[in-house]
């Protein structure tokens, strides 16, 4: 049977070097080796497809609003609905990942929301339009399964990078769709369809893409480096956990709530901008809709390097300075994002606006990547619930921000953007309150208490009954692997004690 040992080991059956949990310790972008890199490519492509579907309507709105007789209020409500569906879906997805594994959870959600995208073709009124946008938005919960899957496949040195690239390249879909949908629509219309039919046919493309990506996940993906949940549970290698315990340990961890709030002011801001920026440039600078669409797309397209960059920065800071470095970098980058948001609302010329917007996009998207460099360490047992809370918090931020600043004509768009920047800065301050006894927080160092070790922190999620049954083994391995979050100078002094008991004896 399996014999675990300390330190990195290269099993002949894995293409990448792995740690004791068989998570990869390296991230090789251009490999599709099973199971690690294959999982990466499957998860980012399917998440990309969901983003394309969710934001497929905005670029075609000039046609849809005439076909369905929409008013500006209808359009605004549909926009809010498109991001509000995912709030609870993300939390539910987090729990589902903990219980059933990311492969089944994400593929199920994608295949259940694909019909809604197909039904967009037969929408015929403002109400049906709002409903399809609302239910399509549920598919954005695949973000949580993406991050969960990456956190299950990749080890601490590269988990920030893996999460950042998967999340960033998925978010790319929001920008790519602003270019894809008008193109597909144009092609169909040139073939001979009437405008009001051409946009309906165009929606089949994102729907089919979504369905095919779900099939790929089911056929080629697996939950953990060692296999799928169901098989591992049946053969006894993975313990089936209880929903109530998983959920409880997730929602009682205050760090999850703080990260949910702060994520609302980097990712939530990103979603808000996706919904309003084309109109902003179109109205303020009198651009053509086509040009405004390209500028809007470039905001989302910056994700190709900005979010991964944030993840890589988190890993680099974590390597040198440990968890404290990750937290400080997150706060700094997100606050700077707020500063540039304030500036964006103030500049009056087109070229300055585009330049500031691009700088702003880098900071705000990097902050998203940095957030998910911290999330994998908040909980091991309830990783899914914490990921879901943080992800859901992102969407709540989008809903709240759009409701306060961008609904109706209370504030002009530029004032709304400036006020949003101020809110980003204020809502990033709670990061100061995050504290890990074994690693410290932004202002305080690690506790000198003897009971403040990685094992104590992660074992606190298991009752003594559960420990007797041996349910906590995976968390113990993770605790050992996470010791590098103490930072380089401390890590070299404290040699890892042999806290991992021999398994399966």
């Amino acid at each position, binding site marked *: 049977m399996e014999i675990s040992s300390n330190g990195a080991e290269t099993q002949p059956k894995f293409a990448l070097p792995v740690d004791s949990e068989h998570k990869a310790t390296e991230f090789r972008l251009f490999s599709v080796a099973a199971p690690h890199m294959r999982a990466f490519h499957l998860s980012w492509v399917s998440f990309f497809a969901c983003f394309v579907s969710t934001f497929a309507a905005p670029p075609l709105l*000039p046609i849809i*609003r*005439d*076909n369905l*007789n929409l*008013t*500006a*209020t209808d359009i605004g409500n549909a926009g809010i609905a498109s991001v509000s569906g995912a709030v609870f879906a993300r939390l539910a997805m987090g729990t589902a990942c903990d219980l059933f594994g990311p492969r*089944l959870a994400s*593929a*199920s959600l994608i*295949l*259940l929301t*694909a*019909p809604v995208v*197909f*039904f967009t*073709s*037969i929408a*015929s009124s403002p109400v049906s339009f709002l409903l399809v946008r609302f239910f399509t938005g549920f598919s954005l919960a695949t973000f949580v399964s993406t991050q969960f899957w990456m956190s299950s496949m990749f080890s601490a040195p590269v988990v920030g990078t893996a999460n950042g690239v998967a999340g960033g390249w998925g978010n790319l879909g929001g920008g790519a769709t602003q270019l894809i949908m008008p193109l597909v629509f144009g092609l169909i219309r040139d073939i001979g369809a*009437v*405008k*009001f*039919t051409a*946009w*309906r*046919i165009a929606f*089949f493309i994102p*729907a*089919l893409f979504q*369905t095919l990506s*779900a*099939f790929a996940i*089911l056929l080629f993906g697996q939950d953990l480096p060692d296999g*799928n949940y*169901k*098989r591992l549970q*049946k*053969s006894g290698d993975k313990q089936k956990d209880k929903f109530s315990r998983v959920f409880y340990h997730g929602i009682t961890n205050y760090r999850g709530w703080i990260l949910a709030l702060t994520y609302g002011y980097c990712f939530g801001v990103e979603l808000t901008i996706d919904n309003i920026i084309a109109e902003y440039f179109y*109205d303020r600078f*009198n651009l053509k809709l086509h040009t405004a669409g390209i500028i809007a797309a470039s905001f989302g397209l910056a994700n190709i390097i900005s979010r991964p960059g944030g993840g890589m920065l988190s890993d680099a800071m974590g390597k040198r300075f440990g968890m404290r470095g990750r937290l400080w970098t997150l706060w700094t980058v997100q606050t700077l994002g707020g500063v540039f948001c304030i500036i964006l609302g103030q500049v009056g010329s087109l070229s300055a606006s585009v330049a500031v917007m691009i700088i702003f996009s880098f900071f705000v998207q990097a902050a998203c990547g940095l957030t998910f460099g911290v999330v994998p360490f908040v909980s091991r047992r309830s990783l899914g619930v914490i990921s879901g809370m943080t992800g859901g918090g992102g969407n709540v931020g989008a809903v709240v921000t759009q409701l306060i600043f961008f609904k109706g004509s209370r504030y002009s768009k530029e004032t709304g953007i400036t006020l949003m920047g101020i809110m980003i800065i204020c809502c990033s301050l709670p990061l100061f309150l995050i504290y890990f006894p074994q690693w410290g927080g932004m202002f305080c160092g690690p506790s000198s208490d003897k009971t403040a070790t990685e094992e104590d922190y992660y074992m606190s999620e298991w009752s003594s009954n559960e420990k007797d049954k041996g349910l906590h083994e995976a968390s113990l391995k993770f605790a050992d692997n996470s010791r590098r979050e103490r930072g380089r100078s401390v890590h070299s002094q404290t040699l890892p004690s042999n806290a991992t008991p021999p398994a399966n004896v």
Partner: protein
Amino acid sequence: MAAAPRLLLGFLLVLACFSETCFATITFSSLPRTLVVTASHPQRLLKAGEDKITVRWGLNQTLAAGTDSAYKSIKVELCYAPISQVDRAWRKTVDNLSKDKTCQFKIVKGPYTTTNQSSEWTIERDVPTATYFVRAYALDAKDNEVAYGQNTDAKKTTNLFEIQAITGRHVSLDIASVCFSAFSIVALMGFFLAEKRKGIKAQQ
């Protein structure tokens, strides 16, 4: 010495006058209403793609002769009535004609003649559901608007008509949507069954 600044001033004045003519913004409120336009249609609620509107336009005969000396061509357009512009900024009426979005569909464009003219227009299939009126602009040789006429009053409340757009839906599209959706759900259930069977096998 005194001549130079005066020349410069004169040059600048001339330049200013030219720029006025070249880049003058034409406002709707500056146009005289000299044309008489009527639109007739079989019933008040019309269907896009099927029904026809007959538009007649001509110079108001009570005006002095020579009013239309600058008119070279006519442009007749379908325009949104105020009720269809509410909460829809993309159909907004703005005085500056280059930014005005009231009239978005061209009915007919042709040379101007002193006799009254008419045209029968089949409503195109991309016209949205809304309430409309008809407006004609008289254009000069440079294609600038110099006069107008419309079939409704100044407040745009009389003689309005409604057009019902096509839905754009087709039975084949509906069937395709339902089939593909059903396929997704059935495929998901199929995968679940296969997983369950694999799980039982692993246990054995």
